[in-house]
């Protein structure tokens, strides 16, 4: 086995950095989509109108019950053909990652809305709170707090899963790592460096989230 030499990884830092920028871009926008559309979708999921709830279930099951790699590949190859659009790889990537995250976040929101004790609805009526005030000041804040840990887990998951778009040619961190490995014939150093970057960012983000979660527990 040849000697390990990590120096080149630093020397190619700009290359990995370019990849990391794309990865963070994908993660950020897929989370923006996931957090907002997931919430709106959850509203559909708890709607009293049954056909809307069916629609919700269909969406959730499609994204939960197929491999995300397949979702990405299908999206990259079929959407441009079906809709005759030519979007950049980054845009298609953040879109499909966002749609996937929407499904998982919607479930988190829905579960935490339904976890609120029915007696809170009764109490809101007994206090003469209208449905708007009840939703805004009683249900949503509690649901958001309940959902937080799962949303954070999903967000970190999206960061890692974004690596899959390297397979369809989006120049993210994973892609640049692969490139570096083939350019330098040093797969161990290249992939290890990439792994460390993913690891450090995930751990730091997880710790920050954990701190806020512990603070929230004060009023659980």
């Amino acid at each position: 086995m040849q000697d390990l030499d990590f120096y080149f990884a630093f020397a190619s830092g700009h290359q990995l950095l370019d990849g990391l920028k794309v990865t963070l871009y994908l993660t950020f926008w897929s989370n923006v989509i996931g957090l907002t559309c997931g919430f709106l979708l959850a509203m559909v999921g708890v709607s009293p109108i049954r056909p809307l709830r069916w629609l919700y279930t269909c969406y959730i099951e499609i994204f939960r019950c197929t491999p995300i790699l397949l979702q990405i590949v299908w999206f990259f190859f079929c959407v441009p053909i079906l809709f005759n659009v030519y979007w950049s790889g980054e845009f298609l990537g953040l879109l499909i990652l966002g749609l996937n995250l929407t499904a998982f976040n919607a479930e988190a929101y829905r579960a935490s809305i339904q976890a609120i004790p029915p007696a809170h609805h009764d109490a809101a009526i007994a206090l003469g709170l209208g449905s708007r005030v009840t939703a805004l000041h009683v249900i949503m804040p509690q649901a958001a707090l309940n959902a937080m840990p799962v949303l954070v887990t999903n967000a970190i998951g999206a960061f890692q899963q974004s690596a899959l778009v390297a397979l369809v040619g989006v120049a993210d961190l994973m892609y640049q790592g692969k490139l570096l490995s083939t350019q330098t014939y040093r797969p161990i150093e290249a992939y290890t460096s990439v792994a460390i970057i993913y690891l450090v960012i995930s751990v730091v983000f997880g710790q920050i989230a954990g701190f806020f979660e512990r603070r929230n527990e004060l009023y659980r």
Partner: protein
Amino acid sequence: MNSQQSFIEVNNLQKSYGQGLVQVIKGLSLSMNNKDRVVVIGPSGGGKSTLLRCVMGLEQIDSGSVSLEGKPYVSRSAGDRQTTIDKTVRSSIGMVFQSYTLFPHLTVMQNLTLAPVKSRGVTKAVAIERARGLLERFGLSAKANEYPNRLSGGQKQRVAIARALMLDPKLMLFDEVTSALDPELVSEVEQMIIGLAENGLPMMIVTHDMWFARRVATRVIFCAEGVIQEDAPPDEFFENPKNKRTRDFIENVLHAR
């Protein structure tokens, strides 16, 4: 007192769950004046909590009506698709529940001021002032800025009562408010309710605590099989119940203690 129109009037109330599968209240009528404190006792499934929930306007009923000061605010007649509820009238009634219903993401103070500020248009300063007064009166001042999970069960229920009082209810409903409490915490909540009773607040109470029932009630109602079996002043009710079903029940609960 006869000249006075009745304060609360429950008229031939029928209520079932599961689309008529389980009939819980079977044509119950009850009238109560504004000096009354009605304690409802009876076996589980006898309809006492359901009665209170119907008076609060939390339930769809099958038929009948409930009126406050002559105004029917919960009603449904044959052929109506659903229960008609007058929310304005309903908002003059307060209710406290068996399970804790303080909103956990709000402090005690925020729990108290939420409804007056958001639904009654009271200014925040006025609401806070009023909340301070109530907390002071009930010995809860130190807890104003705590979140509910820092309170004992007894304190939670007392705050819940104070929260209802923020809206100046004409009638208070207490649905087994001490049933979820540790025994040593029951008394502080009951004492608070007794204090309100002595100030002349009309109330309907569902409880399993016979000492408390006797202490607080002007009338005790025995509710079983969806109707009122007995309705008498507390002394008469406990000492000389007329109905055999009532006698058996009292016998059983008193012996069980």
